[in-house]
């Protein structure tokens, strides 16, 4: 990796160049948006060990000049078979650029799924301004501490706008695939609004490979109006050399339900931030996460549940498995505002270390300003149970297989909850081969 990097200048310059490159301007509003966000990026610093939010992960950051190149559409895209077609609505991005020929958009008025580049200027501006934190709701993480959202904004190539109209229950899954390859940074976004009483399943899959250096940035905004329900499955199967920093921000209104299933596999640098804001009474969220790292990989889960309103419920279950010399971070923040009385919150993070050189840093952060709340949290870090291993082996099962079964068993309960059979089976297979490889090499 090239050593010197003047951050954020290289990124700022690259963004400016992008905006002057006639050949690469797909829509005027895109330029306006990127320009309007540049000042954020200009203030950014590269996180270090002393940046609280990056304490455990800054050492995995390997930002170089090469990575600062905004990715163009891959010319001969080798979209591999990492993706499975769920036979629902399909939105494909290659290097952050919408691939119309690979996508399958709805043909009725019941549901809007459109790439940003196909939106009118007004609509695009409206979408992007809603998605960007407004002045009165300052982002919990200042961009100076979290430069990747700013990079994504300054590099934004396209995105998808999904709107599920009032009382429409979309029975087919809405699948968004991000494929990256080559050298540089990709930047796309997802923006979803579920109107009152709407229901849908959103699946985000990330895949790709590189010979050099590649960074995927992703920003997803989900807005749940009254009584709506969104099931959100997120899966990254990118080749491990690819760095990936993504953020999902969710806002929930009255009686809405948000259920997420985030499957994180390790890589050079991997980070996913999931932020849920419960702003009106009766909103409920359940956040499940499964995270597996091997070799020298890394994965950082940052979750934040903000109980702004009274009478909301949140539940969180994250299970992490770290083998070899890999490293997992779980940072679970729950913030209960003063007015959020009758809040019920439960957070659990269980971790399994497969080797003595693996590392897991888990940190629950509770900030409770209301007095009438129930908020439970628990974290554990353990190893495979010798007695359980022995029991399996006395039935003729090899020690490798026994260890694989127990390790998969550790996350199985969460995996079984994934509400799409095809994706769940894909995840099961992927986890199985990963875990098998962890024990086979010994």
């Amino acid at each position, binding site marked *: 990796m090239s050593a010197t990097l003047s951050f954020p200048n290289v990124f700022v310059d690259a963004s400016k160049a992008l905006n002057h490159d006639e050949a690469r301007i797909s829509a005027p509003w895109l330029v306006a948006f990127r320009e309007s966000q540049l000042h954020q990026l200009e203030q950014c610093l590269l996180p270090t060990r002393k940046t609280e939010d990056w304490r455990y992960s800054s050492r995995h950051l390997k930002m170089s000049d090469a990575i600062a190149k905004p990715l163009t559409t891959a010319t001969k895209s080798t979209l591999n078979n990492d993706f499975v077609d769920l036979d629902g609505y399909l939105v494909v991005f290659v290097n952050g650029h919408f691939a119309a020929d690979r996508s399958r958009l709805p043909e009725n008025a019941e549901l809007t799924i459109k790439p940003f580049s196909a939106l009118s200027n007004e609509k695009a501006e409206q979408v992007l301004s809603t998605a960007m934190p407004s002045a009165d709701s300052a982002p919990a993480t200042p961009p100076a501490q979290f430069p990747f959202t700013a990079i994504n904004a300054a590099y934004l190539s396209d995105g998808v706008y999904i709107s599920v109209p009032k009382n429409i229950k979309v029975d087919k899954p809405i699948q968004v695939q991000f494929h990256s390859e080559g050298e540089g940074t990709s930047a796309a976004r997802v923006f979803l609004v579920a109107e009152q009483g709407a229901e849908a399943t959103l699946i985000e899959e990330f895949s790709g490979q590189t010979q050099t250096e590649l960074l995927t940035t992703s920003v997803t905004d989900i807005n749940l109006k009254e009584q709506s329900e969104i099931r959100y499955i997120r899966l990254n199967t990118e080749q491990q050399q690819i760095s990936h920093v993504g953020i999902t921000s969710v806002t929930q209104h009255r009686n809405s339900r948000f259920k997420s299933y985030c499957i994180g596999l390790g890589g050079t640098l991997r980070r996913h931030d999931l932020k849920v804001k419960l702003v009106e009474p009766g909103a409920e969220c359940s956040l499940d996460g499964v995270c597996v790292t091997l070799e020298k990989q890394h994965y950082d889960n940052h979750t934040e549940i903000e109980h702004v309103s009274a009478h909301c419920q949140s539940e969180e279950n994250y299970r992490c498995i770290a083998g070899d010399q890999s490293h997992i971070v779980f940072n679970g923040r729950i913030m209960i505002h003063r007015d959020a009385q009758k809040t019920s919150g439960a957070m659990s993070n269980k971790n399994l270390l497969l080797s003595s050189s693996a590392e897991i840093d888990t940190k629950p952060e509770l900030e409770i300003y209301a007095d009438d709340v129930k908020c439970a949290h628990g974290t554990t870090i353990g190893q495979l149970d010798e007695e359980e291993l022995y029991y399996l082996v*006395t039935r003729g099962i090899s020690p490798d297989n026994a260890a694989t*079964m127990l390790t998969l068993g550790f996350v199985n309960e969460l995996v079984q909850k994934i509400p799409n059979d095809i994706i769940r089976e894909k995840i099961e297979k992927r986890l199985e081969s990963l875990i098998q490889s962890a024990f086979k090499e010994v």
Partner: protein
Amino acid sequence: MLKISNLQASVEGTQILKGIDLVVRPGEVHAIMGPNGSGKSTLSQVLAGNEAYDITGGEATLDGKSLIEMPTEQRAREGIFLAFQYPVEIPGVSNLQFLRTAINSIREYRGEEEIDAVSFMKRAKEKIKQVNLDPAFLKRGVNEGFSGGEKKRNEIMQMLMLEPKLAILDETDSGLDIDALKVVADGVNALRSPERSVIMVTHYQRLLDYIVPDYVHVLAKGKIIKSGGKELALELEEKGYGWLGIDEE
């Protein structure tokens, strides 16, 4: 089938088995009785291959193959099955997945093909009914949330699925009511054949009313101090262990 000579074993430096001699021929059922702490579970675990125990002397062979250095899984594949006194719970691994992996591991060792899904399910359902457990248990985690009696019946269920050459039952009868006891006994009797052998570790004579042993041995302080026919069990029931010169704990 099984030949044990002068077997000695210790755990954490304390010698528990102090020279066991035992020969079990094909088709035989042996009962091992003895007070608490005499080493019955230790003997069972040592035969199954629990690495927490160190074998400090003697020999044990199954069909002429030495067990001492044989890995635990290979012993199972050679046909040893231990029904645990205290089976562990394994949430997250379903009984079905567990049984299928076990059966296929054993079949692979024997150079046989994997069992097909249909006959596997058929057999699993049949055997679980045989031990009077709800077939819904097949989908649950191994022993997860099972009562003591259900765990014991699940051990028998596994035994029936795996059809071992040598089954070792470590106090499978303890804590069972009479109906469950009959289920266990029926299971063992169903497996009995001229090629298969059973070692039953038990505290009580009552199991032996249902599974009639060919031999009864008394284990005390790590040694077999008396062997006899099935009448020995009745005698123990009547007189306790005192007459053999052992303090009962």
